[in-house]
């Protein structure tokens, strides 16, 4: 799927197959970002990228493809990252101090891809400087940071997105529409995991740069796997369940990579909900066999959105009938090729499931997430619920981390609840 100025909401919806605008508006309201996309072809968005390291350059690769984007400047304290970024966009300005970038009044928006502990101050400064903000997840190093950032977004009325690309991944959007439509029955459990086999280290040119380059491994900068990986998957769980957990418990350890790191390499958390539903999140970076997945379990079926598949508990829907439903909107029914001799259970195939989008997944939503941010900036319209999803996803990670480090079962703290109808939460106002 190519994303350029030719993209239209219609094409995006086509990718989503059977979904209509109604179901999308309820299950993924932030897609309203693409509502005016065809009227903004002449608009431009000048972006400053703060932190063009590996993740920042990955984001840059998509931003460069968007003809509405002009990359105006980079900021990073690490010169090799700046040099690399300037190779990609030689016309951009480069700063060691992000505040200089923020001083540039011609810049409309910033993308923040710096170490976690720096997100909050940069974002607050950016909002104060009148910039719209796209911040990589987890958005803040602490729950207090996250709330400050969210409130600053409300106060300044500036656009606020986070790097929760699954919110824009067609297979996740369609999967959630099916879940919310009850196709798989009530969801009782979500098992999410992200396993790798590697030390998670990056090469360090000189020893004094160790903590700077490998910041993910040190408590001062990051909370490790919980803040760098869990954020995506915990959001998928609450998206499926349509509510926040009430309690969190967990355990973490440095089990295998005893190399001086300060963050866990082996984690498991359990989040419990009001009706007894549970969401588990685990990560072990000494074994990659099961990789990553969010298994959404309903009493009628299972979705594995990362794999892009769903499975029914008993028998699969018939492909010919699914095809007919997919063609329903166009009223162009082809012949249904299923007539023949008797189907019997012993002749059925093994349950290999069906692809959510009818084919193997091709994209992860990062590009669409950034495109949506650009559209929001040029139209100056914050899409519904996008900032709130990013906020709560971050809080779930940080709360899990706190449960692990404190060794206690934590209640979801009321003081960090915000007004959010999707999860039926309200901010507690100070009297």
């Amino acid at each position, binding site marked *: 799927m190519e994303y350029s100025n030719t993209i239209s909401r219609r094409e995006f919806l086509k990718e989503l197959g059977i979904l209509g605008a109604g179901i999308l508006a309820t299950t993924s309201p932030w897609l309203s970002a693409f509502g005016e996309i065809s009227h903004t072809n002449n608009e431009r968005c000048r972006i400053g990228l703060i932190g063009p390291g590996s993740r920042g350059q990955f984001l840059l690769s998509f931003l460069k493809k968007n003809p509405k984007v002009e990359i105006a400047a980079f900021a990073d304290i690490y010169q090799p990252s700046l040099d690399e970024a300037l190779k990609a966009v030689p016309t951009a300005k480069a700063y060691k101090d992000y505040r200089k970038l923020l001083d540039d009044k011609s810049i409309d928006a910033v993308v923040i891809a710096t170490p976690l502990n720096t997100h909050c101050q940069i974002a607050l400064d950016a909002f104060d400087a009148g910039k719209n903000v796209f911040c990589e997840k987890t958005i803040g190093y602490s729950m207090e940071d996250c709330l400050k950032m969210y409130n600053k977004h409300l106060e300044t009325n500036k656009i606020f997105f986070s790097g929760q690309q699954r919110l824009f991944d067609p297979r996740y959007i369609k999967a959630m529409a099916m879940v919310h439509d009850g*196709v798989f029955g009530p969801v009782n459990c979500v098992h999410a995991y992200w396993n790798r086999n590697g030390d998670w280290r990056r090469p360090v040119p000189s020893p004094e740069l160790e903590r700077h380059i490998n910041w993910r491994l040190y408590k001062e900068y990051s909370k490790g796997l919980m803040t760098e990986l869990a954020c995506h998957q915990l959001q998928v769980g609450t998206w499926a369940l349509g509510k926040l957990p009430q309690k969190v418990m967990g355990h973490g350890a440095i089990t295998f990579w005893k190399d001086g790191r300060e963050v866990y390499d082996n984690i498991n958390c359990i989040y419990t909900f009001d009706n007894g539903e549970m969401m588990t999140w685990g990560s072990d970076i000494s074994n990659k066999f099961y990789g990553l997945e969010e298994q959404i379990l309903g009493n009628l079926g299972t979705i594995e959105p990362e794999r892009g598949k769903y499975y029914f508990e*008993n028998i699969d829907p018939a492909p010919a009938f699914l095809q007919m439903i997919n063609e329903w909107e166009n*009223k162009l029914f082809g012949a249904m*090729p299923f007539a023949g*001799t008797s*189907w019997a259970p012993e*002749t059925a195939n093994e349950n290999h499931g069906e692809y959510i989008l009818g084919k193997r997944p091709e994209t992860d939503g990062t590009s669409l997430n950034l495109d949506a941010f650009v559209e929001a900036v040029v139209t100056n319209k914050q899409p519904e619920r996008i900032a709130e999803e990013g906020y709560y996803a971050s809080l779930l990670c940080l709360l899990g981390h706190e449960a692990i480090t404190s060794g206690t079962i934590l209640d979801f703290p009321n003081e960090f609840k915000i007004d959010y109808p999707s999860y039926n939460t309200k901010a507690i106002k100070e009297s």
Partner: protein
Amino acid sequence: MILPRICKKSPSGEMIYYTWFQAMHTRIDVAIVSCEAEAFLNEASQRIYHRILDIEHTANCFDENSEISIVNRQAHLGPMTLSDELYHILSLCMKYNKLTFGLFDITTDSEGFTRETITHVALTDERKIKFDIPGIRLNLSGFLKGYALESIRSLLKECNIENALINMGNSSIMALGRPHSTQKWAISHHMQNTEPIQLENECLTTSGNDTDTRLHIVNPRTGKTIEGRKCTSLVTKSGIEGEVLSTALFIASDEDEEAILQRFHVDRIFHLG
């Protein structure tokens, strides 16, 4: 049981509603096109599901606790009183045996089967059955899907649902109304590249062998299974007649076929393979 379902609404408010489940030793797909609310269609599909379970409980010989299985085990010991439904089903089967010159026969699974075996099944007006000899086993597999289709037709009529496609294990398909005003239901055969078969208030029924090894249809005249990868499909108004005739015509010689077709109305017939 909550049935899985997928539905989609058109801009005009018409909905296509699809549910599927496994029963009667096969898969069942139900697609309904309607302007009714989803909750109403949920209720309709639940009624279909429970009706199928009732039929299964009565007449599925693969279920050892079904009424037919009990009959198979005990009817040689003395007369047994049947439920209204099983009596009705068996009466129809005996009638169709005669109308197909014995080519539709529900006793071919019996021990020591011959074409005379069915004459040892005694049905009386008092709703009783008795086997005159031991070893008789009634197998309604070649009848039940068509019977279930007609039962579903009645239920859908009660619900005022006019447009639906019901698939019983791919071999027995009932198309009611149309999916869209400009189109009939179009079904093609997965075994051969034939033209799509257009259906409206009709049934498409297939009997045959989909492989060279999965042979299950016995010729009552010889007592042997029909060999070879081939099948017979036909389009009829009635699901029951489609079921009976697809089996009989799969077995029939050209002469038998001509004679049988004198007695029934078959809209289209396809011999494949």
